[in-house]
């Protein structure tokens, strides 16, 4: 194994990391998108990825549940990613199992054209859960977990497509919770939402971190500042600075970080 350089990690929380990234290099064909990333992500914290468009945030996020496997030209050039101590790119890793463990919520909410109830029950039925009472319980639990229950409890059998954008996004979060992941990846989950729906999702993120580890990509700097415990700034495929969110926004060490967060970039 290659010599591991010291990962950029942050102080205080002495819990062992749930995601460990070491010397990670990634390319699309001949074009390298991520360069020698070293990073520890702590359990039950919210970690935000920020950086200019094209710097590799989504690419990196998709590496955590091997969503990049679906892209032909995607290649891991070096390094490793461990989740709960297991190298997720090992040959004998069951990718379906991994994605159950590491759920994902996308920028555009993408509910199935089914009822609210079925959207959440779907994943469980695939896993072979048939008992109605079990399904009912999980649906309620997940909708409550996603702060949506009170808004939809009387219309569970109506189509999810009739919900507002903000409700759809929270439904997608509820759906991700149904398979009981440990980690939730969110790629710009609020970029299509109005301020109130955004605030609701942020409140939800704050609640969820009691039980889940969350990694969120956001272009909204104020959002990163509000919701995250730690913030990572990426630029041109490199991790420039990774610190407690307080430090990143109040006193960044790197001049590039300072320039970016203060809007003086480029």
């Amino acid at each position: 194994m290659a010599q591991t350089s010291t990962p950029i990690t942050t102080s205080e929380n002495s819990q062992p990391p749930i995601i460990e990234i070491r010397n990670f290099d990634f390319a699309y064909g001949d074009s390298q998108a991520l360069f020698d990333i070293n990073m520890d992500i702590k359990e039950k914290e919210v970690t935000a990825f920020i950086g200019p468009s094209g710097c590799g945030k989504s690419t990196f996020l998709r590496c955590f549940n091997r969503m990049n496997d679906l892209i032909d030209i995607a290649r891991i050039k070096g390094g490793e990613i461990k989740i709960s101590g297991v190298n997720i790119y090992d040959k004998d890793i069951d990718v379906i199992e991994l994605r159950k463990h590491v759920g994902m919520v996308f920028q555009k909410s993408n509910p199935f054209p089914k009822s609210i109830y079925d959207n959440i029950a779907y994943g469980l039925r695939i896993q072979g859960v048939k008992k109605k009472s079990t399904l009912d319980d999980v649906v309620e639990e997940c909708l409550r977990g996603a702060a949506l229950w009170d808004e939809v409890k009387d219309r569970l059998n109506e189509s999810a497509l009739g919900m507002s954008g903000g409700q759809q996004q929270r439904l997608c979060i509820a759906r991700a919770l149904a398979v009981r992941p440990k980690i939730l990846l969110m790629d710009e989950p609020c970029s299509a939402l109005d301020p109130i729906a955004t605030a609701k999702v942020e409140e939800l993120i704050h609640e969820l971190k009691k039980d889940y580890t969350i990694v969120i990509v956001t272009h909204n700097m104020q959002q990163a500042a509000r919701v995250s415990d730690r913030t990572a700034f990426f630029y041109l495929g490199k991790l420039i600075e990774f610190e407690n969110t307080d430090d990143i926004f109040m006193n960044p060490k790197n001049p590039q970080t300072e320039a970016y967060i203060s809007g003086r970039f480029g």
Partner: protein
Amino acid sequence: MKRYFHHELQDLRSKLILIAEKAHEAGRLAVEGFLNSDLEKTERAIKLDDEIDDLEIEIDRASVRYITLRSPVSSDVRLIFVAIKASHDIERAGDEAHSIAKKTKRILTRDGKVVNKVHIEAMSKLAFAMLDDAITCFLEEDLELAESIMERDKEVDRLNKENFKALASDMCEGSVEPSSNIETILISKSIERIADHAKNLAEEVIYLLTGN
């Protein structure tokens, strides 16, 4: 809608109430030390100064953090800006209490007790009531109370001038040890400044509420 970080504003208000209580306590101890020739109270007033300074720093930090991380708008922003100024005014009032205590200590060490108390008692009552009301009008956004404070400052100024005249003519007659009279003049001036800080704070509140 209520956000999970709004309690931080509540914490900020609590810290302001606390710093104001401590400044009042320091002032009360310092003046009682003077009026009752009580060295022990004087010492306690002096000790409180560090706590007040630390609280001011905490309030500044919490305010800057909230502005940086929580993107506040409208009345939340006004609250924070006035909180920063208010804590500064209160801290300065605390400095005056510290100064009163130090001068009293000097008088007591030299003369054993305070002989000429002039109008210090009446003046300090007015000044501390102004300080309390200044904080109340800020926390409760009470415009009428804020305006009443501006008026009351005049009476404190008047008493301070009377103190000065009395203590100065006393010195001219040569009937007392002049150092203690000079110190009492400065103590009177400190109380007058405490009232000024209360007035400043009330002015901030009026600005906050009316924009003038």
